[in-house]
């Protein structure tokens, strides 16, 4: 099994924010991937989608899913991140007051991506944009007959 699809995300459109992630979650469920894989992929996708909406003019989310893993790439044309190390710190945010009022801009987006993905890569150029790649491994429960509860320990 192999599935690829590219989605576009409009910067500043908070009405539509989350739609791509919902669609991707539906696709991954349809593909029959394990619940934990679907859940984690949807979460990292949502955080990257919200970042594009909050900080970029426009962007793309590229989904690749196969039997081994789900890859989510998010690339945008936006303000970029001057100090990635600082941006990765939980609680640090440059969100506007308007964005914060809606409950975004908690400074946890990037750290949530790192936390829920098995593999996380980020690069950014100020004034150009940001690229994030996240991989969620598709762990086959059949490999763990003695630990069927294992997937639920991820929180």
């Amino acid at each position: 099994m192999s599935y690829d699809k590219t989605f576009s995300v409009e910067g500043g459109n908070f009405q539509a924010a989350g739609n791509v992630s919902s669609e991707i979650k539906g696709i991954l469920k349809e593909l029959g991937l394990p619940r934990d894989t679907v859940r984690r992929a949807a979460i990292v996708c949502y955080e990257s989608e919200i970042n594009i909406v909050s900080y970029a003019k426009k962007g793309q989310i590229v989904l690749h899913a196969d039997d081994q893993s789900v890859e989510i790439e998010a690339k945008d044309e936006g303000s970029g991140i001057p100090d990635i190390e600082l941006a990765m710190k939980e609680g640090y945010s440059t969100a506007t007051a308007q964005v914060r009022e809606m409950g975004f801009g908690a400074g946890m987006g990037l750290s949530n991506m790192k936390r829920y993905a098995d593999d996380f890569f980020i690069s950014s150029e100020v004034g150009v944009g940001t690229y994030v790649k996240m991989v969620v491994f598709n762990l086959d429960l059949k490999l763990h007959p003695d630990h069927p509860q294992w997937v639920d320990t991820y929180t």
Partner: protein
Amino acid sequence: MDLAAIVKALNLKVGCGGNALNREVKGGYVGDLLSDVIANSQEGHVWITRQIHQNIVAVASLKDLAAIILVQGSEPAPDTLEKATREGIPILIATDPGFEVAGKIYKLIST
């Protein structure tokens, strides 16, 4: 304890999702910062918040939360209700402030 029992005990108004009240509630999370809720809530939790815009539905749906409970009589925005109905997420409205809602539900499900 299922959602219906909580609705009854706290006299909550059901904004939408009345057909999904048989769901088991395993706990809850309180917060208005969406990424905090994404990071720390768990499947089957009720989410107690003051946010009323439609992005709360995406968060609840992503985390498979049992319901969203709005506090102090906050009415959800119309597009929030539409989206929640589509996604099958119950939205419940409490007249009490968040502290009391959390306290009452905590007591209900831990006894």
